[in-house]
């Protein structure tokens, strides 16, 4: 092989095809914030603010949701790094961030439950579960799609992993909005329905990454 590129290879490359470098993963991940804000606005406009918002207080309500969105942005940044060659975070750091994200939701649940104990009547539990499981998934799908589009601009060596992280970020963002409406603070409800929705979005992202990898730019 000579030092010059083979003609067959050069023929495959289009002359004069200028491209603009992608922004850094950190900068692109910021786009999750307005998407999460849009989901919040949708929840508040459509369903309204949770009935016990005064008991919960602004710190446990608004600040906790904002921190959760910040965590989603951080996860998105890790996710987008997966699509940049030579910038792959380690599996351990992915795992640490993912566990921290789920633990944060659990912590917020406990903190909310401490100041406003609301339970679901047993007869209504399945219905409440269904609502709080499916709606955050639906609300998180646009965020997941947004992240998926951004990921497709890159090169994914571990598409299932990237998809799972993208789903987790989307789940965090949608749950940050949904908890502004859902007034049930019973940990068993939150962990089953809300965290279940987050994990389901993560599984959806993982499956999408796995099955779509052949159609990506890779």
């Amino acid at each position, binding site marked *: *092989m000579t030092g010059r590129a*083979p003609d067959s*290879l050069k023929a495959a490359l289009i002359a004069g095809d200028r491209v603009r*470098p992608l922004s850094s993963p950190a900068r692109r991940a910021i786009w999750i914030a307005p998407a999460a804000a849009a989901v919040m606005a949708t929840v508040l406009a459509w369903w309204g603010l949770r009935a016990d918002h005064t008991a919960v207080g602004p710190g446990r309500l608004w600040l906790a949701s904002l921190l959760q969105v910040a965590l989603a942005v951080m996860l998105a940044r890790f996710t987008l790094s997966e699509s940049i*060659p*030579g910038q792959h*975070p*380690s599996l351990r750091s992915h795992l640490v961030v993912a566990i921290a994200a789920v633990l944060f939701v659990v912590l917020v649940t406990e903190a909310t439950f401490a100041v406003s104990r609301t339970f679901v009547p047993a007869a209504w539990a399945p219905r409440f579960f269904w609502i709080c499981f499916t709606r955050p998934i639906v609300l998180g799908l646009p965020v997941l799609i947004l992240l998926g589009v951004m990921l497709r601009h890159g090169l994914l060596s571990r598409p299932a992993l990237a998809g799972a992280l993208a789903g987790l970020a989307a789940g965090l963002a949608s749950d940050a909005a949904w908890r502004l409406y859902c007034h049930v603070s019973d940990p068993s409800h939150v962990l089953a329905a809300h965290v279940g929705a987050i994990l389901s979005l993560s599984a959806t992202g993982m499956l999408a990454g796995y099955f779509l990898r052949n159609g990506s730019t890779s």
Partner: protein
Amino acid sequence: MTDTSDAADAELRALMGGYQAGDVEAFDALYSRTLPMVRGYLSALTVDRSATHDLVQEVYLQMHRARRTYDPARPVRPWIAGITRHVWLMAVRSYRRRRSPEVAALDESIDLAVIPDLDGFADRDALARALALTPDDQREALVLHHVYGFTFREVAHTAGCSEGAARIRASRGMAELRRQLTGGRT
């Protein structure tokens, strides 16, 4: 990094900038400067000379498709190494190939003589055979760090592992290489 490698990296960045701007001549120059590393790294990953030759062109095609993902603020070689690794992974997934030591024959483009710890050890063929027998992840870290001068951070970001893991892999790879060359006498 040394002044020499800094200068080389600055040159590669300038070429990459030209390539992103649509300059085919810049691609040509980039190709000639990075080909030895791409071939060497692929050879270290696949240990199969015929596979290496097949995959080199695919690396540059993927590089073209993914050229937007190069950040001009970062060094070029880890980015190319990342694409090379991606192509290798795709090939492994596509063909479900597994490395078999009996076909091991490292590409001549890996300059093993640059590994300082191995001065005076055996001949080049013996070194290549010993390197082919080291575990895949250790060989990858060893070649990127010791042959191509990647920092452990760059090795980690290429292989998707932690910096500590990259350091350990390279160190164990070197120990394994030495063990292979001395026949277990250390």
